[in-house]
Protein backbone atom coordinates (compact mmCIF):
# COMPACT_ATOMS: atom_id res chain seq x y z
CA UNK A 1 0.00 0.00 0.00
CA UNK A 2 2.77 2.44 0.86
CA UNK A 3 4.54 2.07 -2.52
CA UNK A 4 1.20 2.58 -4.24
CA UNK A 5 0.60 5.74 -2.25
CA UNK A 6 4.11 6.99 -3.05
CA UNK A 7 3.50 6.33 -6.73
CA UNK A 8 0.24 8.24 -6.61
CA UNK A 9 1.78 11.24 -4.86
CA UNK A 10 4.73 11.26 -7.27
CA UNK A 11 2.51 11.27 -10.35
CA UNK A 12 0.12 13.88 -8.93
CA UNK A 13 2.95 16.11 -7.81
CA UNK A 14 4.67 15.96 -11.18
CA UNK A 15 1.48 16.48 -13.17
CA UNK A 16 0.26 19.36 -11.04
CA UNK A 17 3.58 21.19 -11.01
CA UNK A 18 4.57 20.57 -14.61
CA UNK A 19 1.42 21.96 -16.19
CA UNK A 20 2.09 25.45 -17.49
CA UNK A 21 1.31 28.46 -15.33
CA UNK A 22 2.13 29.22 -11.74
CA UNK A 23 0.17 29.94 -8.56
CA UNK A 24 1.67 33.41 -8.46
CA UNK A 25 -0.07 34.28 -11.75
CA UNK A 26 -3.24 34.84 -9.83
CA UNK A 27 -1.64 37.47 -7.65
CA UNK A 28 0.03 39.23 -10.52
CA UNK A 29 -2.10 39.03 -13.64
CA UNK A 30 -5.31 40.22 -12.13
CA UNK A 31 -3.76 42.60 -9.66
CA UNK A 32 -1.67 45.40 -11.18
CA UNK A 33 -0.58 46.60 -7.75
CA UNK A 34 1.60 43.54 -7.24
CA UNK A 35 5.21 44.30 -8.11
CA UNK A 36 7.69 41.84 -9.67
CA UNK A 37 9.58 41.88 -6.36
CA UNK A 38 6.50 40.71 -4.52
CA UNK A 39 6.15 37.94 -7.05
CA UNK A 40 9.75 36.89 -6.43
CA UNK A 41 9.10 36.91 -2.70
CA UNK A 42 6.06 34.68 -3.18
CA UNK A 43 8.07 32.26 -5.29
CA UNK A 44 10.76 32.12 -2.59
CA UNK A 45 8.21 31.74 0.16
CA UNK A 46 6.60 28.75 -1.53
CA UNK A 47 9.97 27.32 -2.70
CA UNK A 48 8.70 27.34 -6.26
CA UNK A 49 12.20 28.28 -7.48
CA UNK A 50 13.74 25.00 -6.36
CA UNK A 51 14.03 22.03 -8.73
CA UNK A 52 10.94 19.86 -8.79
CA UNK A 53 12.50 16.81 -7.14
CA UNK A 54 13.65 18.93 -4.20
CA UNK A 55 10.19 20.42 -3.86
CA UNK A 56 8.74 16.92 -3.92
CA UNK A 57 11.24 15.68 -1.33
CA UNK A 58 10.47 18.61 0.96
CA UNK A 59 6.75 18.00 0.57
CA UNK A 60 7.17 14.28 1.21
CA UNK A 61 9.24 14.85 4.34
CA UNK A 62 6.51 17.03 5.76
CA UNK A 63 3.86 14.52 4.73
CA UNK A 64 5.60 11.90 6.85
CA UNK A 65 4.63 14.02 9.87
CA UNK A 66 1.09 14.37 8.49
CA UNK A 67 1.90 17.97 7.64
CA UNK A 68 0.34 18.94 4.32
CA UNK A 69 1.80 22.43 4.43
CA UNK A 70 -0.06 25.69 4.41
CA UNK A 71 -2.65 26.70 1.86
CA UNK A 72 -1.64 29.24 -0.80
CA UNK A 73 -4.99 30.94 -0.28
CA UNK A 74 -4.90 34.35 1.46
CA UNK A 75 -5.97 32.76 4.78
CA UNK A 76 -2.81 30.57 4.69
CA UNK A 77 -4.35 27.99 7.02
CA UNK A 78 -2.75 24.56 7.34
CA UNK A 79 -4.17 22.33 4.63
CA UNK A 80 -4.91 19.55 7.09
CA UNK A 81 -7.19 21.86 9.13
CA UNK A 82 -9.10 22.74 5.99
CA UNK A 83 -9.49 19.12 5.01
CA UNK A 84 -10.29 17.97 8.54
CA UNK A 85 -13.44 20.05 8.82
CA UNK A 86 -14.73 18.91 5.42
CA UNK A 87 -13.67 15.28 5.31
CA UNK A 88 -16.42 13.91 7.60
CA UNK A 89 -19.09 15.47 5.40
CA UNK A 90 -17.83 13.88 2.19
CA UNK A 91 -17.01 10.54 3.79
CA UNK A 92 -20.35 10.52 5.58
CA UNK A 93 -22.33 11.09 2.38
CA UNK A 94 -20.33 8.48 0.49
CA UNK A 95 -20.61 5.87 3.24
CA UNK A 96 -24.36 6.43 3.37
CA UNK A 97 -24.53 6.17 -0.42
CA UNK A 98 -22.49 2.97 -0.36
CA UNK A 99 -24.73 1.54 2.37
CA UNK A 100 -27.84 2.16 0.29
CA UNK A 101 -26.17 0.80 -2.83
CA UNK A 102 -25.45 -2.46 -1.02
CA UNK A 103 -28.77 -2.98 0.75
CA UNK A 104 -30.75 -2.24 -2.41
CA UNK A 105 -28.53 -3.67 -5.14
CA UNK A 106 -27.89 -7.09 -3.58
CA UNK A 107 -31.55 -8.16 -3.16
CA UNK A 108 -32.34 -6.63 -6.55
CA UNK A 109 -29.56 -8.58 -8.26
CA UNK A 110 -30.47 -11.81 -6.47
CA UNK A 111 -34.15 -11.52 -7.38
CA UNK A 112 -33.30 -10.77 -11.00
CA UNK A 113 -31.00 -13.82 -11.15
CA UNK A 114 -33.56 -16.12 -9.56
CA UNK A 115 -36.18 -14.97 -12.06
CA UNK A 116 -33.68 -15.17 -14.92
CA UNK A 117 -35.23 -14.01 -18.24
CA UNK A 118 -38.62 -13.52 -16.65
CA UNK A 119 -40.56 -10.27 -16.26
CA UNK A 120 -38.82 -8.98 -13.13
CA UNK A 121 -35.39 -9.70 -14.62
CA UNK A 122 -36.24 -7.79 -17.78
CA UNK A 123 -37.56 -4.80 -15.83
CA UNK A 124 -34.41 -4.59 -13.71
CA UNK A 125 -32.25 -4.96 -16.82
CA UNK A 126 -33.97 -1.94 -18.35
CA UNK A 127 -33.55 -0.03 -15.10
CA UNK A 128 -29.87 -0.97 -15.03
CA UNK A 129 -29.21 0.24 -18.56
CA UNK A 130 -31.00 3.52 -17.95
CA UNK A 131 -29.24 3.88 -14.60
CA UNK A 132 -25.87 3.39 -16.26
CA UNK A 133 -26.62 6.03 -18.84
CA UNK A 134 -28.07 8.70 -16.57
CA UNK A 135 -25.64 11.53 -15.88
CA UNK A 136 -25.75 11.98 -12.09
CA UNK A 137 -25.74 15.75 -12.21
CA UNK A 138 -28.68 15.78 -14.58
CA UNK A 139 -30.64 13.47 -12.29
CA UNK A 140 -29.80 15.88 -9.48
CA UNK A 141 -31.24 18.79 -11.46
CA UNK A 142 -34.43 16.89 -12.27
CA UNK A 143 -34.94 15.85 -8.64
CA UNK A 144 -34.27 19.38 -7.44
CA UNK A 145 -36.86 20.61 -9.89
CA UNK A 146 -39.43 18.03 -8.77
CA UNK A 147 -38.92 17.77 -5.00
CA UNK A 148 -37.34 21.12 -4.31
CA UNK A 149 -39.27 23.51 -6.52
CA UNK A 150 -42.53 21.89 -7.72
CA UNK A 151 -43.43 20.02 -4.54
CA UNK A 152 -41.32 21.99 -2.08
CA UNK A 153 -40.68 18.89 0.05
CA UNK A 154 -36.92 19.03 0.20
CA UNK A 155 -34.38 21.82 0.55
CA UNK A 156 -32.34 22.65 -2.56
CA UNK A 157 -28.89 23.17 -1.16
CA UNK A 158 -26.56 23.19 1.83
CA UNK A 159 -26.55 20.88 4.82
CA UNK A 160 -28.50 22.90 7.39
CA UNK A 161 -31.42 25.29 7.42
CA UNK A 162 -30.92 28.92 8.42
CA UNK A 163 -32.63 28.43 11.77
CA UNK A 164 -30.57 25.31 12.53
CA UNK A 165 -29.07 26.70 15.73
CA UNK A 166 -32.46 27.27 17.35
CA UNK A 167 -33.64 23.70 16.80
CA UNK A 168 -33.91 20.89 19.33
CA UNK A 169 -31.62 17.90 18.87
CA UNK A 170 -34.31 15.85 17.20
CA UNK A 171 -35.19 18.67 14.82
CA UNK A 172 -31.52 19.17 14.00
CA UNK A 173 -31.21 15.53 13.08
CA UNK A 174 -34.32 15.71 10.93
CA UNK A 175 -33.08 18.87 9.27
CA UNK A 176 -29.76 17.36 8.24
CA UNK A 177 -31.45 14.16 7.12
CA UNK A 178 -33.78 16.20 4.92
CA UNK A 179 -30.85 18.00 3.35
CA UNK A 180 -29.02 14.73 2.76
CA UNK A 181 -31.78 12.81 0.96
CA UNK A 182 -31.14 14.19 -2.52
CA UNK A 183 -27.31 14.18 -2.46
CA UNK A 184 -27.15 10.64 -1.06
CA UNK A 185 -29.76 9.35 -3.47
CA UNK A 186 -28.02 10.88 -6.46
CA UNK A 187 -24.59 9.60 -5.53
CA UNK A 188 -25.99 6.14 -4.84
CA UNK A 189 -27.96 5.95 -8.09
CA UNK A 190 -25.12 5.29 -10.52
CA UNK A 191 -23.51 2.61 -8.36
CA UNK A 192 -26.86 0.96 -7.79
CA UNK A 193 -27.27 0.03 -11.43
CA UNK A 194 -23.74 -1.27 -11.76
CA UNK A 195 -23.72 -3.34 -8.59
CA UNK A 196 -27.14 -4.95 -9.10
CA UNK A 197 -26.03 -6.02 -12.57
CA UNK A 198 -22.86 -7.44 -11.09
CA UNK A 199 -24.69 -9.33 -8.34
CA UNK A 200 -27.07 -10.73 -10.93
CA UNK A 201 -24.34 -12.17 -13.16
CA UNK A 202 -22.35 -13.47 -10.19
CA UNK A 203 -25.49 -15.12 -8.83
CA UNK A 204 -26.35 -16.65 -12.21
CA UNK A 205 -22.95 -18.25 -12.28
CA UNK A 206 -23.26 -19.69 -8.78
CA UNK A 207 -26.79 -21.03 -9.26
CA UNK A 208 -25.49 -23.41 -11.94
CA UNK A 209 -22.96 -24.98 -9.55
CA UNK A 210 -23.19 -28.54 -8.31
CA UNK A 211 -23.41 -27.63 -4.63
CA UNK A 212 -26.56 -25.64 -5.29
CA UNK A 213 -28.00 -28.68 -7.02
CA UNK A 214 -26.97 -30.79 -4.01
CA UNK A 215 -28.64 -28.37 -1.63
CA UNK A 216 -31.84 -28.55 -3.66
CA UNK A 217 -31.61 -32.34 -3.86
CA UNK A 218 -31.33 -32.51 -0.09
CA UNK A 219 -34.77 -30.96 -0.04
CA UNK A 220 -33.77 -27.65 1.48
CA UNK A 221 -36.33 -24.90 1.03
CA UNK A 222 -35.57 -22.64 -1.97
CA UNK A 223 -35.12 -19.65 0.35
CA UNK A 224 -32.26 -21.37 2.19
CA UNK A 225 -30.69 -22.57 -1.04
CA UNK A 226 -30.67 -19.10 -2.54
CA UNK A 227 -29.85 -16.93 0.45
CA UNK A 228 -27.54 -19.27 2.31
CA UNK A 229 -25.78 -21.56 -0.12
CA UNK A 230 -25.76 -19.50 -3.28
CA UNK A 231 -25.65 -15.89 -2.11
CA UNK A 232 -22.68 -16.42 0.20
CA UNK A 233 -20.57 -17.55 -2.71
CA UNK A 234 -21.97 -15.04 -5.14
CA UNK A 235 -21.00 -12.19 -2.81
CA UNK A 236 -17.28 -12.95 -3.00
CA UNK A 237 -16.57 -11.03 -6.21
CA UNK A 238 -19.04 -8.34 -5.17
CA UNK A 239 -16.86 -7.45 -2.20
CA UNK A 240 -13.98 -6.43 -4.45
CA UNK A 241 -16.27 -3.95 -6.17
CA UNK A 242 -16.47 -2.10 -2.87
CA UNK A 243 -12.84 -1.08 -3.13
CA UNK A 244 -12.99 -0.28 -6.81
CA UNK A 245 -16.03 1.96 -6.52
CA UNK A 246 -14.40 4.40 -4.08
CA UNK A 247 -12.56 6.57 -6.65
CA UNK A 248 -15.78 7.03 -8.61
CA UNK A 249 -17.70 8.07 -5.53
CA UNK A 250 -15.00 10.53 -4.48
CA UNK A 251 -14.77 11.97 -7.99
CA UNK A 252 -18.54 12.31 -8.06
CA UNK A 253 -18.49 14.30 -4.85
CA UNK A 254 -16.93 17.25 -6.72
CA UNK A 255 -20.00 17.47 -8.91
CA UNK A 256 -22.65 16.80 -6.28
CA UNK A 257 -21.13 19.09 -3.71
CA UNK A 258 -21.04 21.87 -6.24
CA UNK A 259 -24.67 21.30 -7.29
CA UNK A 260 -26.04 21.02 -3.77
CA UNK A 261 -23.63 23.58 -2.28
CA UNK A 262 -22.34 21.12 0.31
CA UNK A 263 -19.16 22.25 2.09
CA UNK A 264 -17.23 18.99 1.62
CA UNK A 265 -13.89 17.90 0.19
CA UNK A 266 -15.09 17.95 -3.40
CA UNK A 267 -15.98 21.60 -3.08
CA UNK A 268 -12.66 22.34 -1.39
CA UNK A 269 -10.85 20.63 -4.25
CA UNK A 270 -12.80 22.57 -6.85
CA UNK A 271 -12.06 25.88 -5.13
CA UNK A 272 -8.37 25.08 -4.69
CA UNK A 273 -8.02 24.05 -8.33
CA UNK A 274 -9.60 27.34 -9.38
CA UNK A 275 -7.03 29.28 -7.33
CA UNK A 276 -4.07 26.97 -8.07
CA UNK A 277 -3.59 26.26 -4.41
CA UNK A 278 -0.97 23.49 -4.84
CA UNK A 279 -0.71 22.28 -1.23
CA UNK A 280 -4.47 21.97 -0.88
CA UNK A 281 -4.79 20.22 -4.25
CA UNK A 282 -2.07 17.75 -3.27
CA UNK A 283 -3.68 17.28 0.14
CA UNK A 284 -7.04 16.43 -1.41
CA UNK A 285 -5.45 14.04 -3.91
CA UNK A 286 -3.54 12.25 -1.16
CA UNK A 287 -6.63 11.95 1.03
CA UNK A 288 -8.62 10.72 -1.96
CA UNK A 289 -5.98 8.08 -2.65
CA UNK A 290 -5.81 7.06 1.00
CA UNK A 291 -9.60 6.65 1.06
CA UNK A 292 -9.38 4.47 -2.03
CA UNK A 293 -6.66 2.34 -0.52
CA UNK A 294 -8.66 2.05 2.70
CA UNK A 295 -11.61 0.92 0.60
CA UNK A 296 -9.40 -1.75 -0.96
CA UNK A 297 -8.11 -2.83 2.43
CA UNK A 298 -11.65 -3.04 3.77
CA UNK A 299 -12.59 -5.12 0.75
CA UNK A 300 -9.66 -7.48 1.38
CA UNK A 301 -10.62 -7.87 5.03
CA UNK A 302 -14.28 -8.51 4.29
CA UNK A 303 -13.14 -10.94 1.59
CA UNK A 304 -11.38 -12.93 4.29
CA UNK A 305 -14.46 -12.69 6.49
CA UNK A 306 -16.77 -14.07 3.82
CA UNK A 307 -14.38 -16.67 2.42
CA UNK A 308 -12.89 -19.10 4.94
CA UNK A 309 -10.43 -20.41 2.33
CA UNK A 310 -8.58 -17.10 2.40
CA UNK A 311 -8.50 -16.97 6.19
CA UNK A 312 -6.80 -20.35 6.34
CA UNK A 313 -4.42 -19.83 3.47
Amino acid sequence: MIPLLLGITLISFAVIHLTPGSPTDIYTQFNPKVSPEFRQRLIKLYSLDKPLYIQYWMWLKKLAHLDFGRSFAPDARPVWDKIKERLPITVGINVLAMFFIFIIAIPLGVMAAVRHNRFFDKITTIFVFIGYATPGFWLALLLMMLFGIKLGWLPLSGLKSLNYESMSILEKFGDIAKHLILPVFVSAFGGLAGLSRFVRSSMLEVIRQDYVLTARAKGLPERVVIYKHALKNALLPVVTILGLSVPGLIGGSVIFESIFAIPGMGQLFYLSVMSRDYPTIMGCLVIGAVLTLLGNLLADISYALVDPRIRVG
Partner: protein
Amino acid sequence: MWSRFLERFLNNKLGVAAAIFLLILFLASWLAPWVVPYDPLAINVKAVLLPPSFSHPLGTDTLGRDVLSRLIYGARISLLVGFVAVGIATFIGTFLGALAGYYGHFVDTIIMRLVDIMLCFPSFFLILAVVTFLEPNIWNIMVVIGLTSWMGVARLVRAEFLSLKEREFVLAARALGASDFHIIFHHFLPNAIAPILVSATLGIPGAILTEAALSFLGIGVQPPTPSWGNMLTLGKDNLEIAWWLSLFPGMAILLTVLAYNLLGEAIRDALDPRLD
Protein backbone atom coordinates in the same frame (compact mmCIF):
# COMPACT_ATOMS: atom_id res chain seq x y z
CA MET B 1 -16.12 -14.79 -39.30
CA TRP B 2 -17.41 -11.32 -40.20
CA SER B 3 -20.49 -12.49 -42.05
CA ARG B 4 -21.48 -14.67 -39.09
CA PHE B 5 -20.83 -11.74 -36.80
CA LEU B 6 -23.03 -9.50 -38.93
CA GLU B 7 -25.79 -12.08 -39.04
CA ARG B 8 -25.82 -12.44 -35.27
CA PHE B 9 -25.60 -8.69 -34.75
CA LEU B 10 -28.58 -8.01 -37.03
CA ASN B 11 -30.65 -10.44 -34.97
CA ASN B 12 -30.20 -8.23 -31.91
CA LYS B 13 -32.99 -5.68 -32.25
CA LEU B 14 -31.79 -3.40 -29.46
CA GLY B 15 -28.28 -3.33 -30.88
CA VAL B 16 -29.54 -2.47 -34.36
CA ALA B 17 -31.79 0.25 -32.95
CA ALA B 18 -28.83 1.72 -31.05
CA ALA B 19 -26.67 1.65 -34.16
CA ILE B 20 -29.36 3.40 -36.20
CA PHE B 21 -29.83 6.03 -33.50
CA LEU B 22 -26.11 6.76 -33.39
CA LEU B 23 -25.93 6.86 -37.19
CA ILE B 24 -28.71 9.45 -37.29
CA LEU B 25 -26.99 11.44 -34.57
CA PHE B 26 -23.70 11.37 -36.47
CA LEU B 27 -25.33 12.45 -39.70
CA ALA B 28 -27.37 15.19 -38.01
CA SER B 29 -24.38 16.68 -36.24
CA TRP B 30 -22.16 16.34 -39.29
CA LEU B 31 -24.74 18.01 -41.50
CA ALA B 32 -25.72 20.39 -38.70
CA PRO B 33 -25.45 23.61 -40.76
CA TRP B 34 -28.07 22.29 -43.18
CA VAL B 35 -30.25 20.50 -40.66
CA VAL B 36 -30.75 22.95 -37.80
CA PRO B 37 -33.74 25.29 -37.92
CA TYR B 38 -31.84 28.25 -36.39
CA ASP B 39 -28.28 29.49 -35.99
CA PRO B 40 -27.16 28.01 -32.63
CA LEU B 41 -25.32 31.20 -31.69
CA ALA B 42 -27.90 33.72 -32.91
CA ILE B 43 -29.12 35.84 -30.03
CA ASN B 44 -32.75 36.87 -30.27
CA VAL B 45 -33.94 39.21 -27.55
CA LYS B 46 -37.53 38.89 -28.71
CA ALA B 47 -37.59 35.13 -28.05
CA VAL B 48 -36.02 34.77 -24.62
CA LEU B 49 -36.88 31.68 -22.54
CA LEU B 50 -39.77 30.51 -24.68
CA PRO B 51 -41.15 27.11 -23.65
CA PRO B 52 -41.29 24.38 -26.31
CA SER B 53 -43.67 25.34 -29.10
CA PHE B 54 -44.21 24.68 -32.78
CA SER B 55 -41.59 27.16 -33.96
CA HIS B 56 -39.06 26.18 -31.26
CA PRO B 57 -39.68 22.45 -30.59
CA LEU B 58 -37.41 22.39 -27.53
CA GLY B 59 -37.80 26.01 -26.46
CA THR B 60 -35.25 28.81 -26.32
CA ASP B 61 -32.65 29.77 -23.72
CA THR B 62 -31.86 32.95 -21.79
CA LEU B 63 -30.44 34.63 -24.89
CA GLY B 64 -33.25 33.52 -27.15
CA ARG B 65 -31.14 30.84 -28.85
CA ASP B 66 -32.96 27.78 -30.17
CA VAL B 67 -32.35 24.78 -27.88
CA LEU B 68 -32.85 22.16 -30.60
CA SER B 69 -30.26 23.78 -32.85
CA ARG B 70 -27.80 24.01 -29.98
CA LEU B 71 -28.47 20.41 -29.06
CA ILE B 72 -27.61 19.21 -32.57
CA TYR B 73 -24.41 21.25 -32.62
CA GLY B 74 -23.62 20.03 -29.11
CA ALA B 75 -23.74 16.44 -30.38
CA ARG B 76 -20.55 17.18 -32.32
CA ILE B 77 -18.64 17.70 -29.09
CA SER B 78 -19.94 14.60 -27.34
CA LEU B 79 -19.42 12.32 -30.32
CA LEU B 80 -15.93 13.68 -30.95
CA VAL B 81 -14.91 13.35 -27.31
CA GLY B 82 -16.15 9.79 -27.22
CA PHE B 83 -14.10 8.79 -30.23
CA VAL B 84 -10.86 10.65 -29.67
CA ALA B 85 -10.57 10.06 -25.92
CA VAL B 86 -11.31 6.36 -26.27
CA GLY B 87 -8.99 6.17 -29.28
CA ILE B 88 -6.15 7.53 -27.17
CA ALA B 89 -6.98 5.26 -24.24
CA THR B 90 -7.23 2.22 -26.49
CA PHE B 91 -3.91 3.00 -28.15
CA ILE B 92 -2.05 3.46 -24.86
CA GLY B 93 -3.78 0.49 -23.25
CA THR B 94 -3.08 -1.83 -26.17
CA PHE B 95 0.53 -0.74 -26.38
CA LEU B 96 1.29 -1.12 -22.67
CA GLY B 97 -0.81 -4.26 -22.31
CA ALA B 98 1.00 -5.81 -25.27
CA LEU B 99 4.40 -4.97 -23.81
CA ALA B 100 3.44 -6.37 -20.41
CA GLY B 101 1.87 -9.52 -21.77
CA TYR B 102 4.51 -10.27 -24.37
CA TYR B 103 7.70 -9.56 -22.47
CA GLY B 104 6.51 -10.46 -18.97
CA HIS B 105 8.92 -10.37 -15.99
CA PHE B 106 10.32 -6.94 -15.20
CA VAL B 107 8.40 -5.01 -17.89
CA ASP B 108 5.17 -6.65 -16.79
CA THR B 109 5.76 -5.80 -13.12
CA ILE B 110 6.39 -2.13 -13.84
CA ILE B 111 3.44 -1.69 -16.17
CA MET B 112 1.02 -3.51 -13.91
CA ARG B 113 2.19 -1.43 -10.93
CA LEU B 114 1.39 1.66 -13.00
CA VAL B 115 -2.05 0.22 -13.72
CA ASP B 116 -2.63 -0.34 -9.99
CA ILE B 117 -1.60 3.23 -9.23
CA MET B 118 -3.84 4.69 -11.91
CA LEU B 119 -6.78 2.60 -10.71
CA CYS B 120 -6.43 4.00 -7.18
CA PHE B 121 -6.41 7.53 -8.47
CA PRO B 122 -9.42 9.65 -7.84
CA SER B 123 -9.02 10.31 -11.57
CA PHE B 124 -11.83 12.83 -11.86
CA PHE B 125 -9.90 15.02 -9.39
CA LEU B 126 -6.79 14.83 -11.52
CA ILE B 127 -8.66 15.45 -14.78
CA LEU B 128 -10.32 18.47 -13.22
CA ALA B 129 -7.01 19.92 -12.04
CA VAL B 130 -5.09 19.33 -15.26
CA VAL B 131 -7.81 20.60 -17.57
CA THR B 132 -8.20 23.75 -15.52
CA PHE B 133 -4.46 24.40 -15.48
CA LEU B 134 -4.05 23.75 -19.20
CA GLU B 135 -6.92 26.05 -20.10
CA PRO B 136 -10.20 24.27 -20.61
CA ASN B 137 -10.71 23.34 -24.23
CA ILE B 138 -11.98 20.33 -26.06
CA TRP B 139 -8.57 18.96 -27.13
CA ASN B 140 -7.09 19.10 -23.65
CA ILE B 141 -10.15 17.37 -22.28
CA MET B 142 -9.94 14.54 -24.78
CA VAL B 143 -6.24 13.96 -24.21
CA VAL B 144 -6.55 14.01 -20.42
CA ILE B 145 -9.55 11.67 -20.40
CA GLY B 146 -7.63 9.35 -22.70
CA LEU B 147 -4.56 9.43 -20.48
CA THR B 148 -6.57 8.44 -17.40
CA SER B 149 -8.74 5.67 -18.80
CA TRP B 150 -6.44 3.18 -20.55
CA MET B 151 -6.08 0.72 -17.64
CA GLY B 152 -8.98 -1.57 -18.52
CA VAL B 153 -7.71 -2.10 -22.07
CA ALA B 154 -4.17 -2.69 -20.84
CA ARG B 155 -5.32 -5.44 -18.47
CA LEU B 156 -7.45 -6.99 -21.16
CA VAL B 157 -4.72 -7.04 -23.81
CA ARG B 158 -2.19 -8.35 -21.32
CA ALA B 159 -4.46 -11.23 -20.30
CA GLU B 160 -5.16 -12.04 -23.94
CA PHE B 161 -1.44 -12.03 -24.78
CA LEU B 162 -0.57 -14.20 -21.79
CA SER B 163 -3.02 -16.84 -22.91
CA LEU B 164 -1.88 -16.66 -26.55
CA LYS B 165 1.78 -16.95 -25.65
CA GLU B 166 1.68 -20.67 -25.02
CA ARG B 167 -0.37 -21.60 -28.06
CA GLU B 168 1.13 -23.86 -30.72
CA PHE B 169 0.81 -21.48 -33.64
CA VAL B 170 2.90 -18.92 -31.79
CA LEU B 171 5.57 -21.47 -30.99
CA ALA B 172 5.49 -22.50 -34.65
CA ALA B 173 5.90 -18.90 -35.80
CA ARG B 174 8.79 -18.44 -33.43
CA ALA B 175 10.44 -21.69 -34.54
CA LEU B 176 10.24 -20.40 -38.12
CA GLY B 177 12.24 -17.38 -37.00
CA ALA B 178 9.51 -14.73 -36.84
CA SER B 179 10.50 -11.52 -35.07
CA ASP B 180 8.78 -10.19 -31.96
CA PHE B 181 7.29 -7.45 -34.09
CA HIS B 182 5.86 -9.94 -36.56
CA ILE B 183 4.42 -12.15 -33.84
CA ILE B 184 2.80 -9.23 -32.01
CA PHE B 185 1.26 -7.64 -35.08
CA HIS B 186 0.41 -10.68 -37.16
CA HIS B 187 -0.49 -13.27 -34.57
CA PHE B 188 -1.39 -11.64 -31.27
CA LEU B 189 -3.19 -8.43 -32.13
CA PRO B 190 -5.61 -9.93 -34.68
CA ASN B 191 -6.68 -12.38 -31.98
CA ALA B 192 -7.14 -9.63 -29.42
CA ILE B 193 -9.01 -7.26 -31.70
CA ALA B 194 -12.51 -8.44 -30.75
CA PRO B 195 -12.26 -7.81 -27.00
CA ILE B 196 -10.46 -4.51 -27.67
CA LEU B 197 -13.28 -3.39 -29.93
CA VAL B 198 -15.91 -4.27 -27.34
CA SER B 199 -14.07 -2.55 -24.54
CA ALA B 200 -13.56 0.56 -26.69
CA THR B 201 -17.26 0.78 -27.52
CA LEU B 202 -18.15 0.36 -23.87
CA GLY B 203 -15.55 2.99 -22.93
CA ILE B 204 -17.08 5.74 -25.06
CA PRO B 205 -20.02 6.43 -22.71
CA GLY B 206 -17.65 7.07 -19.82
CA ALA B 207 -15.71 9.64 -21.82
CA ILE B 208 -18.93 11.37 -22.92
CA LEU B 209 -20.17 11.53 -19.33
CA THR B 210 -16.84 12.89 -18.06
CA GLU B 211 -16.77 15.64 -20.68
CA ALA B 212 -20.38 16.56 -19.89
CA ALA B 213 -19.56 16.75 -16.18
CA LEU B 214 -16.51 18.96 -16.82
CA SER B 215 -18.43 21.29 -19.12
CA PHE B 216 -21.23 21.38 -16.56
CA LEU B 217 -18.76 22.53 -13.92
CA GLY B 218 -17.61 25.27 -16.28
CA ILE B 219 -14.18 23.84 -17.02
CA GLY B 220 -14.98 22.06 -20.24
CA VAL B 221 -16.18 23.43 -23.53
CA GLN B 222 -16.57 27.16 -23.09
CA PRO B 223 -19.68 29.08 -24.05
CA PRO B 224 -20.92 30.25 -26.49
CA THR B 225 -19.91 26.97 -28.20
CA PRO B 226 -22.77 24.66 -27.30
CA SER B 227 -22.04 21.35 -25.59
CA TRP B 228 -24.57 19.23 -23.75
CA GLY B 229 -22.71 19.76 -20.50
CA ASN B 230 -22.56 23.54 -20.64
CA MET B 231 -26.18 23.72 -21.79
CA LEU B 232 -27.07 21.98 -18.53
CA THR B 233 -25.21 24.67 -16.59
CA LEU B 234 -27.64 27.16 -18.06
CA GLY B 235 -30.42 24.78 -17.10
CA LYS B 236 -29.21 24.70 -13.52
CA ASP B 237 -29.08 28.50 -13.31
CA ASN B 238 -32.65 28.73 -14.55
CA LEU B 239 -34.01 25.66 -12.79
CA GLU B 240 -36.97 27.50 -11.32
CA ILE B 241 -38.22 29.12 -14.50
CA ALA B 242 -37.23 26.95 -17.47
CA TRP B 243 -37.46 23.18 -17.08
CA TRP B 244 -36.78 22.58 -20.78
CA LEU B 245 -33.24 23.91 -20.47
CA SER B 246 -32.40 21.08 -18.06
CA LEU B 247 -34.54 18.28 -19.43
CA PHE B 248 -33.47 18.04 -23.08
CA PRO B 249 -29.66 18.21 -22.96
CA GLY B 250 -29.64 15.58 -20.20
CA MET B 251 -32.00 13.42 -22.22
CA ALA B 252 -29.63 13.69 -25.18
CA ILE B 253 -26.71 12.52 -23.04
CA LEU B 254 -28.77 9.67 -21.61
CA LEU B 255 -29.90 8.41 -25.01
CA THR B 256 -26.44 8.61 -26.55
CA VAL B 257 -24.76 6.85 -23.65
CA LEU B 258 -27.52 4.24 -23.60
CA ALA B 259 -27.11 3.66 -27.34
CA TYR B 260 -23.35 3.14 -27.00
CA ASN B 261 -23.84 0.71 -24.12
CA LEU B 262 -26.43 -1.30 -26.04
CA LEU B 263 -24.23 -1.27 -29.13
CA GLY B 264 -21.23 -2.48 -27.13
CA GLU B 265 -23.21 -5.31 -25.56
CA ALA B 266 -24.64 -6.27 -28.94
CA ILE B 267 -21.16 -6.39 -30.49
CA ARG B 268 -19.93 -8.51 -27.61
CA ASP B 269 -22.81 -10.95 -27.85
CA ALA B 270 -22.35 -11.19 -31.60
CA LEU B 271 -18.63 -11.87 -31.25
CA ASP B 272 -18.93 -14.35 -28.44
CA PRO B 273 -22.21 -16.20 -28.23
CA ARG B 274 -21.12 -18.09 -25.14
CA LEU B 275 -21.63 -15.05 -22.90
CA ASP B 276 -25.03 -14.70 -21.30
